[in-house]
């Protein structure tokens, strides 16, 4: 089995909390299996650190199935690591070579303050959703799925936008720390459906205002967000958001 294991050097960002300055610490890990996920590799590092009496590296994770949006990590200069359309928990160690040095950084943006080590506070996203990413119309009991006809194209586009798991990789990848891909996915998801039409204008205006209040940067359409998004949210959602904003801004009271 020796051909399927590897030894790695990890350059990990360690930071006690948001008020302290952090630094990289280098660790060696040995006997890492190709079949392991990236987070399992970090579990092994942490077990070793605990046994040695050190402080384990803090990192976010939950479902480890690529659907919850909890894991993060900026690995070797790309959010969620080298694979396309993939989350860190679904990144496997076969993506790396024996003897490689892996640089692991947290999402870096002022709006995502570091809680500890690689864990950042992404509650800014929650507050953007609270500003309008919902439908508050009283719809009564759940109705039959087909009682409200929706064009297939629109339903598909809405679903593609709704795929966003809110992990924040778009912010991490963007040179401007902009949250526009996230916001545009959330706005598009509802703007394309009849249920979302009622609050369409106030939603986009309030969510953009909240995004600015949270201190995210402005979008300059570089496309880095789209390229790194684990759910492949299209940048055309950003164009839709811009149009929604322009229309709402010109016609709202």
């Amino acid at each position, binding site marked *: 089995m020796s051909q399927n294991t590897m030894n790695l050097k990890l350059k990990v960002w360690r930071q006690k909390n948001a008020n302290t300055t952090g630094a990289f610490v280098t660790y060696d890990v040995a006997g890492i299996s190709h079949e392991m996920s990236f987070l399992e590799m970090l579990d092994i590092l942490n077990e070793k650190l605990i046994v040695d009496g050190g402080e384990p590296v803090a990192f976010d994770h939950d479902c480890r199935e690529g659907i919850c949006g909890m894991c993060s990590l*900026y690995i070797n200069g790309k959010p969620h690591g080298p694979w396309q359309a993939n989350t860190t928990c679904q990144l496997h160690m076969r993506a790396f070579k024996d003897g490689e040095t892996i640089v692991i950084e947290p999402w870096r943006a002022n709006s995502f303050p570091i809680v500890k080590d690689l864990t950042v506070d992404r509650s800014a996203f929650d507050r953007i959703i609270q500003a309008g990413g919902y439908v508050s119309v009283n719809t009564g009991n759940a109705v039959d799925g087909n009682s409200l006809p929706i064009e297939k194209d629109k339903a598909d586009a809405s679903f593609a936008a709704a795929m966003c798991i809110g992990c924040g990789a778009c912010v991490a990848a963007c040179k401007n720390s902009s949250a526009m891909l996230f916001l545009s996915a959330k706005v598009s998801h509802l703007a394309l459906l009849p249920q979302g039409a009622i609050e369409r204008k106030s939603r986009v205006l309030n969510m953009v205002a909240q995004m600015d209040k949270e201190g995210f940067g402005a979008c300059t*359409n570089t496309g880095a967000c789209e390229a790194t998004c684990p759910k492949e949210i299209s940048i*055309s959602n950003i164009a839709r958001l811009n149009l929604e904003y322009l229309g709402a801004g010109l016609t709202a009271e």
Partner: protein
Amino acid sequence: MTFKQMFTSSVGKKLVMGFTGIFLILFLIVHAGLNATIWANDGGLMFNKAGHFMGSNAVPRVLEIGLFLFIFLHIIQGYLLTLENKSKRAVGYAVTYKDGSKWYSRSMALLGTLILLFLIAHIYHFWTPSRLGGIANIKALGEMEHNGVKLHNLYAEMDIVFTNPYVVILYVLACGSLAYHLAHGFQSAFKTIGVYNKRYQAIITSMGYGFAILIPLLFALMPLSFYFDWIK
């Protein structure tokens, strides 16, 4: 929602960049089109007549004021956005993410600055003597007469300016900056005003690259044509 709130939000600022950018794109078409008359090979008559029309007719003169306003707005807003966006990440990455975007998309401020430096030289070379020539110490342009109308001889001025190889190099390099600025800017402007969906994606992308190659190429050929005496 007031107009002020609308155009000062993050999306609003980008709308300002996009709309002024599209106006400047339209200006480039007019500018390149008019300047292409230097290739009429008539000793610059058609070109000087075009220049005379632009300088003496009220409509282009009013548009000129708008042009200067929009250029200033585009430059100032561009710098403000760049500084603001940079401030949003106090601690930077050890390894930069480069694969997801083009270098010129990330370098719009730098490319814009190079164009601005060129613009200052360009205004000094042609706009100032044409519009302000004769005032104070500003050298007036030579003139040519056609059907009793005195025309500024901008063609002769180009011939003089473009004898200096350094000026020619500056102009050609500036066209390179413009090409890359447009390669991102054209598509980005349309994305910003919301025109980027399945239906328009392909056409905007190909038009953007086509425009980014064609217009700067036309402009670059102008100083080269004078320097190498390709036109009579």
